[in-house]
């Protein structure tokens, strides 16, 4: 099930809110069970046959967690390694087995490449489960003895299928004690509504444009169309994924949980390093804490630090998909991060901010081409078109030119709103309100934000029921 669906808005959410809040506050375990049942339903809506995999994954992590209490370090370590192997084995089989087989086949081996369907959200819930076992192993959290609670942590519907990747330590307390307030409900709902709006009103339109550009045949892809498509995808992936995070964070808040921010206006970043501090923060910090730091991070020789960055970014690429283009995408970022960190740091700091921002956006937009393209050769061809080196006949160029004008005129409002919404206007406004000496300023702005969010929600609902089914991009990871 996706948040931007009639079944979720019109049925799932309404019924869940009714059932959940009908249970008195003091019966928190009962409320947790309601959340658990609805989370399983939410996941089951995508196909019941993959539910067992989620349960097996949780089972592995639950049992491993219980064993983290044992006093024999050797056995504890062995169980920890087995649990990691179990998690990575499941992920590896469903996500990478086909890819691996295709590599072996391409080397000349006579094997059949299996076609394995990727269960929804497996990358996200596997990483959440692993984070629990790692934290339990390191003694960073208490062992969860109630399997239902661990299942709830991993399967909690707001973050189950597309993140953010929530650490167990961040919700451990809330599973047992959490506050439900009217303000929290309102704030959560506002966040959800704005996320819903970003998805329905912006990401959808940008997706249509990107699809047209990225599906244009080699003979027709002019530089203009390629750039329009690249910009559109840059906006689409941000407004799609950050919308999902907004909705997840908002929904969690409605039910008393607080998730950390996953995005901080990444398109205002003035360096690639800065970009990755603002983009998919939960994934970056996961790799930082569980892979990069254990490898030694940057507190080692330059050679090792460079190696560590390459390892982390290759894995980050691979996490996103079993394709060479994703690995290349990860390596591409590793190269830029290393250049920034070890070679260009002083030079970049002397450049005007606007120039640094422009360079960063160029790097980011080019990287998204790898992300969106069907494969590496498609990505390289697309980038060739972007720099104007794709030969297109005059007749084809005329058709493409018309298409570019159409895509800009038809969606002018979405382009304008995307540009505005990608800028940190809301935090700036919040700061102004907080610093305002006028006593009415805060309450009035709060009311205005409620009215605005409700308006966006209603318009988005209109777009939802008049549009076609619209899956989220990050479901594929």
């Amino acid at each position, binding site marked *: *099930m996706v948040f931007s*669906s*009639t*079944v979720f*808005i*019109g*049925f799932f*959410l*309404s*019924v869940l*809110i*009714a059932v959940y809040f009908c249970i008195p506050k003091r019966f928190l375990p009962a409320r947790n069970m309601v959340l658990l049942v609805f989370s399983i339903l939410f996941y*089951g*809506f*995508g*196909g*019941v*046959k993959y539910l067992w995999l989620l349960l097996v994954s949780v089972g592995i992590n639950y049992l491993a967690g219980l064993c983290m209490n044992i006093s024999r370090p050797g056995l504890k370590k062995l169980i920890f390694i087995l649990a990691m192997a179990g998690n990575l084995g499941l992920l590896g089989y469903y996500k990478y087995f086909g890819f691996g087989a295709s590599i072996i086949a391409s080397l000349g081996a006579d094997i059949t490449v299996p076609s394995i369907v990727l269960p929804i959200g497996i990358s996200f819930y596997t990483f959440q489960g692993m984070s629990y076992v790692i934290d339990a192993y390191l003694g960073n959290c208490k062992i969860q003895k109630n399997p239902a609670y661990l299942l709830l942590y991993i399967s909690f519907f707001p973050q189950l299928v597309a993140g953010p990747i929530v650490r167990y330590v961040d919700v451990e307390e809330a599973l047992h004690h959490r506050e439900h307030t*009217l*303000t929290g*409900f*309102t704030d959560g*709902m506002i966040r959800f509504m704005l996320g819903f709006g970003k998805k329905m009103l912006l990401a959808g339109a940008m997706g249509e444009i990107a699809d047209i550009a990225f599906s244009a*045949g080699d*003979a*027709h892809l002019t530089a203009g169309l390629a750039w329009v498509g690249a910009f559109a995808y840059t906006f689409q992936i941000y407004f799609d994924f950050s919308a999902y995070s907004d909705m997840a964070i908002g929904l969690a808040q409605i039910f008393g949980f607080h998730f950390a921010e996953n995005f901080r206006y990444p398109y205002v970043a003035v360096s690639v390093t800065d970009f990755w501090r603002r983009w998919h923060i939960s994934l970056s910090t996961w790799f930082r804490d569980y892979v990069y730091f254990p490898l030694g991070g940057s507190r080692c020789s330059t050679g090792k630090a460079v190696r560590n960055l390459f390892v982390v970014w290759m894995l980050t690429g691979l996490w996103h998909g079993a394709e060479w283009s994703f690995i290349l995408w990860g390596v591409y970022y590793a190269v830029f991060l290393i250049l920034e960190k070890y070679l260009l740091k002083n030079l970049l700091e002397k450049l005007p901010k606007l120039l640094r921002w422009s360079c960063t956006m160029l790097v980011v937009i080019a990287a998204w081409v790898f992300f969106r393209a069907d494969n590496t050769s498609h990505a390289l061809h697309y980038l060739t078109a972007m720099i104007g080196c794709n030969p297109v*006949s005059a*007749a*084809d160029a005329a*058709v493409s*030119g*018309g*298409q570019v*004008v*159409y895509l800009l*005129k*038809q969606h*002018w*409002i979405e382009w304008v709103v995307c540009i505005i919404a990608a800028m940190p206007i809301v935090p700036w406004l919040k700061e102004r309100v907080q610093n305002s000496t006028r006593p009415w300023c805060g*309450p009035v702005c*709060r*009311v205005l934000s*409620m009215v605005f969010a*409700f308006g966006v*929600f*209603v*318009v988005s*609902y*209109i*777009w*939802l*029921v*008049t549009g*076609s*089914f619209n899956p989220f991009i990050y479901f594929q990871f």
Partner: protein
Amino acid sequence: MKKSRLHIPDILFVCAVLLFLFGAMAFTVMSMDESYSFYENRNLAEIPAFTVSGMLDGSWFSDVETSLQDHAAGRNVALKIKTWLDLRVFRRPVVNEVVIAEDDLLLPWNAYEYPCDTAWIEEKADTVAANLKSHAEVTRSYGGYFLYAAIPCQYVCYEDAYPDYLNNRADYTEKSGEALFARLTEMDVPYLDMLAVYKEQGILRSSSSLVDNHYSISGAFAAYRAAVEKWNADTGSDYPIPDASSYETTALPNPYLGSRTRKLCGLWTSGEKLHIMTPKENIPFRRYENGEEIAGTVYALPADDTSDVLYSLYMGGDNRETRIETDRENLPDILIYGDSFTNAMESVAWVGFDTMYTYDFRHYGEKTVEELILEYKPDIVICVRDYEALLLETGNGA
């Protein structure tokens, strides 16, 4: 006191949200029995039958979502609001696949096409012409006359009205017409290119609707007249040329809801009116649909002067099999087949024949064209195709 006052907006907000969510649920459930969307001209998705395999692979849930989306609370109102916003607020050049052109003109949006694949066009033209040749030979076998009539649809009539950056299909129109007509000439199949005729008569634009894909009744009459002229010219016969003065032409006062205005949820008002042409002479006739006699009329007239009229005014819309008998044995018989472009032509052509047979092969499948031609042996057979369907073998080209 201060604290509770501060919560009032929160309470109101939460109430509004809950009202919306539960209202959406209740109204969606209540509208599940609706089965047709008028503005989209399609059937709504039904709740799928439950299957275990569908539940396991998720397809059943996906179909449920499709159905709920179709039946969502306030969907028709939502369609109108979205259309209104796109038309009036965002002023998009294309709304619901309708190009908003100048002078109250609503045109179809055509997907972008790169310069036509000439080889494909030639191949298709060969196939279509070969089929038509076969029909023409069957008709000739008993002394009948076969005519292929190509009618320009709206986007062909208004090619120049498209903004430069949109696709008016001029390239495809020109190449497909040229290829097919060349093949028909080679294969000795009589044809009538109404695009050339309308241009020659200076009525290209007036022959088409402003807000619908079809031609006007005057365009249909001109096509019928040109067909008879061609028949006379090719066979040396002197069949009476129909004359507009023998018809009473009346403009209906009702608003015309063309296929484009319908796609815009009726939010676009156009001054265009639908006309009907009735013979001044009283000619009794009997009309049969699928073999059953029905009311003797060729116009589905509205009950009052205010309700919308559609192109289905002519012959009551698309029919699989129609027969009109006038019991005037001195007149020839005619068989017309084609898509909805036949409807307006039928409304005026029946006057000139003893029996008129019409078939729409998108809906009729019992017999082939050739079997029907040999069964009825009509004096003239007209295949009516609009320019969009010139090279199609299925759908509107069936």
